[in-house]
């Protein structure tokens, strides 16, 4: 029996419930039709709620779903009904803040679509096959954005701390030899 926390899916939907990005980690929704149906139910059940300041939560079909909205973007993280909702919430918060960092505060649908590669990388850095990989937004954003080829990326504090970290890393490496 696997006891570690498991995430069933991460969804990013727009203000009409259309999928911008989604990643499923279980076979609970085997086909794209099933996935779309699930997304539709989740969206219609949550769209009227105010999830803009705090992470909100609901139960649906034996699943716990935590969600947060900003502008025309809707973020969802789903887990099983036995899951600790605070763990799911920390995953969601990590995702939300990382996207915010990566999009430099301009979090809306247009910006998300323009930087969809970053969103995909972000998903990839948070969950690996349902297992929580990282929940610290700074680390996620760093990993997803560190080698961003975007030449317009400003030299933020992040990249400096990154540079320092790399330098330290190189130093220890040469010392170990």
């Amino acid at each position, binding site marked *: *029996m*696997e*006891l*570690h*926390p498991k995430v069933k899916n991460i969804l990013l939907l727009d*203000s009409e419930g259309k*999928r911008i*990005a*989604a*990643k499923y980690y279980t076979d609970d929704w085997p086909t*794209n039709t099933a*996935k*779309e149906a699930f997304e539709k139910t989740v969206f219609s*059940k949550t769209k*009227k*709620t*105010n999830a*803009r300041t*705090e*992470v*909100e*939560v*609901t*139960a649906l079909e034996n699943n716990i779903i*935590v969600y947060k*909205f900003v*502008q*025309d973007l809707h973020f969802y993280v789903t887990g099983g009904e036995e899951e*600790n*909702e*605070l*763990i799911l*919430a*920390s995953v969601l918060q990590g995702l939300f803040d990382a996207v915010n960092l990566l999009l430099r505060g301009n979090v*809306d649908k*247009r910006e998300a*679509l*323009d930087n*969809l*590669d970053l969103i*995909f*990388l972000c998903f*990839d850095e948070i969950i*690996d*096959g349902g*297992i*929580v*990989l*990282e*929940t610290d937004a700074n680390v996620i954003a760093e*990993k997803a954005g*560190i*080698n*961003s*080829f975007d030449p317009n990326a400003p030299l933020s504090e992040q990249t400096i701390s990154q540079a320092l970290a790399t330098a330290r*890393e190189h130093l*220890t*490496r040469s010392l*170990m030899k």
Partner: protein
Amino acid sequence: MAQPYVKKDDDHDDELEYSPFMGIEKGAVLQEARVFNDAQVDPRRCSQVITKLLYLLNQGESFTKKEATEVFFSVTKLFQSKDTGLRRMVYLIIKELSPSSDEVIIVTSSLMKDMNSKIDMYRANAIRVLCRIIDGTLLTQIERYLKQAIVDKNPVVSSAALVSGLHLLKTNPEIVKRWSNEVQEGVQSRSALVQFHALALLHQIRQNDRLAVSKLVGSLTRGAVRSPLAQCLLIRYTSQVIRDMSNHGQSGERPFYEFLESCLRHKAEMVILEAARAITELDGVTSRELTPAITVLQLFLSSPRPVLRFAAVRTLNKVAMTHPMAVTNCNIDMESLISDQNRSIATLAITTLLKTGNESSVERLMKQITNFMSDIADEFKIVVVEAIRSLCVKFPLKYRSLMTFLSNILREEGGFEYKRAIVDSIVTIIRDIPDAKESGLLHLCEFIEDCEFTYLSTQILHFLGTEGPNTSDPSKYIRYIYNRVHLENATVRAAAVSTLAKFGFMVESLKPRITILLKRCIYDSDDEVRDRATLFLSVLGGDGTVDNDKDSKVFLFGSLEVPLVNMETSLKNYDPSEEAFDINSVPREVKSQPLAEKKAQGKKPTGLGAPPAAPASGFDGYERLLSSIPEFAAFGKLFKSSSPVELTEAETEYAVNVVKHIFDNHVVFQYNCTNTIPEQLLERVNVIVDASEAEEFSESTSKALNSLPYDSPGQAFVAFEKPAGVPAVGKFSNTLTFVVKEVDPSTGEAEDDGVEDEYQLEDLEVVAADYMVKVGVSNFRNAWESMNEEDEHVDEYGLGQRASLGESIKAVIDLLGMQPCEGTETVPSNARSHTCLLSGVYIGNVKVLVRAQFGMDSSQQIAMKLAVRAEDVSVAEAIHEIVANG
């Protein structure tokens, strides 16, 4: 309410929404993917194309095998580029394309190179990609690097390796298990996430070694865990260890409780919640153990964060099912949650309050709920309605306000499931609380005046027909029922006609008027309605002799006494002929799964001796089998056949089970024998039965089995005579006797000479339950009331100390061999009292009903009050005797 979304480009308002992927097409993108093959790789361009491919896949577009292969091959070319951003995208798309094993070869070397790269990001991601796509053989090749990666200086790399290990454990456990030492080192890591992943993997590797898990938990609970996530894991493992220990009979002070309790003071809320939940879910948790957990959850209830409130109220709701008293302290905080913005929280709060509330708070609570009901979804409303139903059963005196509430919401808008839940609740209340009957029936009448669901209308009409005539003023329902005949579809009209007839039959004063109403229905446009009206008119128009009365009563009110499945089979088997279908020929036995029948199957032709009778199962099969044997044909009608009882241990040389067939003055034991030794042929197989401990039985005939070849089951029979109609009991010891002949396995020929041998079988008992046939009744209350109340026998029994109510109820059911009705054999967990309804037919075709009330006191002592009604007083006494002796 939601904040208005501020659109950035107001001038785009009327135009199509902007998207970089507008009008994207798979074919075109696949064309674009050719840039991957360019001699000079343009990283920026390639990344964009990969993003487009990922977008397509993410939107549910699927690539054909050929397309996926082509894309995969060209993607592999991109490993030439030194651009790190592009490499990151390459990793991502390879995972998404999930290449087949023969394609994987192509990227293995590139990925293995990256696994040993100086760049951390390459190492971490190459591990994740490679572990996702490779198979066992390749895995052994890279195992060395993975072990190294687990102890890598960079936490991201070691996390990547550990998480990959968790995935690989499912497919290649034997390889991953070899990494224990490295993983162990990871548990000591200073990085929070590495520790979390290492702990998860280490536990997963050792999960089947209870001792190792217990040691792991023991050492870590002393405070070596850093991250909240790892601490949550540790709490889960601890609960598992506690469960295992109590399963293995270790009693005394609950181990590790102190650790769980200390986690309630952890600084991370997720750990506090995890610990509180673990405590509430402990087996047989005491209120003292619960208190600290409830206290922290109560604090969560007033948190500004919805997730915390939800988590707390969800946990408390579960606790309220088993320990309502422990939750009452939170009632004030809970009440303020009824108006919570988040409807999931509000519903959970209400249902919790309904479980914990006391009699005096019911009315106040109902008022609050009424305001709340209008703006929640049906699924929440159903939960509330169900909670109210159980509340009404708990506080019968409060039925008035609860019934008013239910009838009010019944009038409002709602879907089928919701309405059905309300109707079911009202029906339950009417059944359980006699005072509520009249008002409840009127509410239902009003509801069918404007009900859009045919199913509900017919159900209610049927219910009115059974309950309505017994009320003080039956005539007031007639108007509602007759209105249906005018205004509804044919199904409802037919149901209304039947209901009218029931009123006419039961209430003499209404008969003439109902006859007039029914006469009008003869001209209905629907066949069924006309047929029913005509039929009932002739029933009502009878001359009123007693005999006729009884028949009509059975006809109108009698429930189908045979299980529907059996009825269906019998009707299917019925050939239209001169002989009318006889409902008495339908078996009444509720079919249970034949357990040992698998062994008795397999038909192999036997060359020697008489062919064994075809293995038969089920009541029909047994009846046919026995009547085909001349010795038993004269015994009359078979009353009951037991399910097979094993007389040998599994996996022995000879497998024997026995079926007990009960006749009026005979008992036949059918021994199903299987020879499991290929080198042996058994002949003249007989069972010698010693009935010295069964005084009332005397052996009459036996029928030996001539030959029992390997793996081809056969039956031997022994018949006993017993006093007619008497439920005689006794114990029988059995010995299997036979002649063994060696068989040459290559030719299958048996030797001529055999050796006599015998084989001891286990004892067999005929018990009182063997004389009882499980026959369910569809409406227990009606059946119960139709039996003579004066013949009721009531007695009380102490059943002593038992583990649970459910266990003692099962024991009583097994002892009596009766059919539990209306699902009353299941007991809500932790209930202190329960009523179980049983029905059956006792030998001599005597119908028996039992109402058994169980109660448990604080020291787990169980008392039972047993009320028996039977068509024959002596049988009711006999039932008590069975219980008294059991």
